[in-house]
């Protein structure tokens, strides 16, 4: 009997785990990873990091309040969108709750001429790029499949097919390098996407062409119901080494650390040093989308453990302890936040259904005979009901 056949006879149950198995200690080892870059502890304590300190050394109290404001408004917008889905105004919503620091920290590290390739959950990054939040809701309401001009804010359309956009980012970055520009490109993706072939190929292409791209992976621990250990046997940031570029794990709930690490990675890109993988270690506090039910696959105590590491709370603690923000600031922000919620609510409710003929618009840039023919048939069919209405 060979060794292989002996192994094959062993029960495999240990690989899968049983439904309902407690996962409360699942993250402990990785949470205490000595490689995790952190500048702000969950308690709001500012800690120094020799390597990355320089990238936030010049951050003023006003900028800190700005980061806090960004996170609070993004969370408020996100909550409003979830509510709008519950009210039937949106068909679906993918909440970013818990990932505000990863998105605002990285988003605020960017320059205007940098280009962003997001997934469908990058509402905080969109906010940083100046995309009107109501524009993000069109596709979730079902009135369009995109709806903003990617070149207005250098923020590409949300990409739903997991990982595809990492190749677009790489190709765009190859173009930036050809143009001799010193802009950088950032590709967002998640722990689930890290298993996609397109992500692996984007690592290969960006490495061999030395493309100025930052791969920003938000490891929020869950790809719908599948935990990160279903995607990888090594910490994700370590994958970069195999492709020949650096990877770093940052506390994704620490907005300052995310800002610093992303600035470092962008600087590498601008200096012609090629791609970088940033793994922002964070947690998806909500469901995958409003259609998901996390109670079927994870326990509340896991979420509770991450609640103690909340990205907004820790910056508030720091702002208060360091006297960088007073009661007036927080009260004003509260009012602004409610106003944003109201504005989004009203804008979504007022969003008209698209014209029927939008089906045929922009299928091609230069036109297509069949589309023209079918549009005409559709028009004739629609017109055939005109008489009935008059009856």
């Amino acid at each position, binding site marked *: 009997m060979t060794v292989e056949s002996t192994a094959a006879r062993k029960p495999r149950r240990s690989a899968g785990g049983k439904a309902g198995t407690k996962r409360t200690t699942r993250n402990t080892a990785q949470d205490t990873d000595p490689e995790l870059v952190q500048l702000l502890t969950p308690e709001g304590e500012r800690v120094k990091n020799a390597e990355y300190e320089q990238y936030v050394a010049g951050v003023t109290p006003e900028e800190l309040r700005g980061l806090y404001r960004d996170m609070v408004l993004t969370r408020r917008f996100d909550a409003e969108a979830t509510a709008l889905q519950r009210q039937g105004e949106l068909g679906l919503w993918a909440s970013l709750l818990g990932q505000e620091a990863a998105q605002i920290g990285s988003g605020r590290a960017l320059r205007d001429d940098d280009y962003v390739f997001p997934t469908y959950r990058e509402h905080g990054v969109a906010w940083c790029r100046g995309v009107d939040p109501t524009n993000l809701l069109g596709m979730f309401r079902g009135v369009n499949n995109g709806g903003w001009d*990617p070149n207005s804010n250098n923020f590409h359309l949300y990409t739903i097919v997991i990982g595809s956009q990492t*190749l677009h*980012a*790489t*190709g*765009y970055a190859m173009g930036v390098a050809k143009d001799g520009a010193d802009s950088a490109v950032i590709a967002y993706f998640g722990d689930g996407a890290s298993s996609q072939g397109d992500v692996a190929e984007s690592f290969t292409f960006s490495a061999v062409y030395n493309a100025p791209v930052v791969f920003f992976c938000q490891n929020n621990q869950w790809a719908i119901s599948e935990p990160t250990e279903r995607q990888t046997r090594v910490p994700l940031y370590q994958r970069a080494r195999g492709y020949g570029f650096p990877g770093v794990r940052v506390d994704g709930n620490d907005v300052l650390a995310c800002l610093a690490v992303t600035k470092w990675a962008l600087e590498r890109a601008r200096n012609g040093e090629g791609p970088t993988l940033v793994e922002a270690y964070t947690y998806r506090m909500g469901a995958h989308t409003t259609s998901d039910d996390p109670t079927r696959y994870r326990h509340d105590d896991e979420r509770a453990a991450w609640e103690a590491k909340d990205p907004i709370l820790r910056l508030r603690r720091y702002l208060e302890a360091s006297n960088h923000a007073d009661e007036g600031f927080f009260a004003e922000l509260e009012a602004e936040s409610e106003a944003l919620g109201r504005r989004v609510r009203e804008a979504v409710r007022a969003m008209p259904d698209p014209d029927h003929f939008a089906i045929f618009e*922009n299928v091609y*840039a230069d036109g297509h005979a069949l589309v023209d023919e079918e549009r005409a048939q559709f028009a004739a069919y629609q017109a055939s009901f005109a008489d009935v209405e008059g009856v």
Partner: protein
Amino acid sequence: MAVEKMALAKAINESLRRALDADPKVVIMGEDVGKLGGVFRVTDGLQKDFGESRVIDTPLAESGIVGTAIGLALRGYRPVVEIQFDGFVFPAYDQIVTQLAKMHARSLGKVKLPVVVRIPYGGGIGAVEHHSESPEALFAHVSGLKIVSPSNASDAYWMMQQAIQSDDPVIFFEPKRRYWDKGEVSTEAIPGPLHKARVTREGTDLTLAAYGPMVKLCHEVAEAAAEEGKSLEVLDLRSVSPLDFDSIQASVEKTRRLVVVHEAPVFFGSGAEIAARITERCFYHLEAPVLRVGGYHAPYPPARLEEEYLPDLDRVLDAVDRSLAY
């Protein structure tokens, strides 16, 4: 300038050279397209003359090739990518179908994707598995893509020019078994719009419609039929999406019979779409059902069987006889 006789592969090479010369945003990408000049030498000498940043040897990853071409197009480039063989396009199928084809519409017309995907396709060269397929229908089913296939050197030259100038993604199917067929190419006289079919032989009794590698066969069929006193018209469709139904209709209204020929499997092939639409358009003109000749609903066979699988003179003549028997 002059009219020159050249092989179809050389015509594409010259066309790519002209595009690289004319527009600094045109870049060539693919596996082995650089020093080797591609496995069929279609890009021969281009990297030497235009450099490694314009003629780019890529990693061996088709999804990566098309995906990064999309990114380059978003940056303002006009990538012309080579997929080495028909059967190797499928790793890129996701990028082509879910991204390349739809991005213009998703952006409500704000971004354009001027990407040409070159695919040497079809059989008849005695190749191993995955090197002889005709997957055009799998792309024609997808809106947002344009699908063309030249049958001769002149069209290869000009259709490539037009495909590169198109602001839409174009899948450019190159009839690999015709790569070495020579034809006259004028570098001055544009032979017509990209998506317009062309009558390449006039006839009165029946229309043979084909594109790419099967056009030459249809001419041989028409020649053989003429010896038997039958007058066949040959229509080179040139474009599979859009299909030029007006030209097919005009021909069928004249001849009243239609046989569509392609190497791709008949089942759900482009011939099926043509048959359905021409039946709608020409119902009272048709003297016989539209017949199709093509591959079988079986994997492309090993090379020693490909002559049985591919449409040939006798199989097309058989279909002609069946049509005329109605």
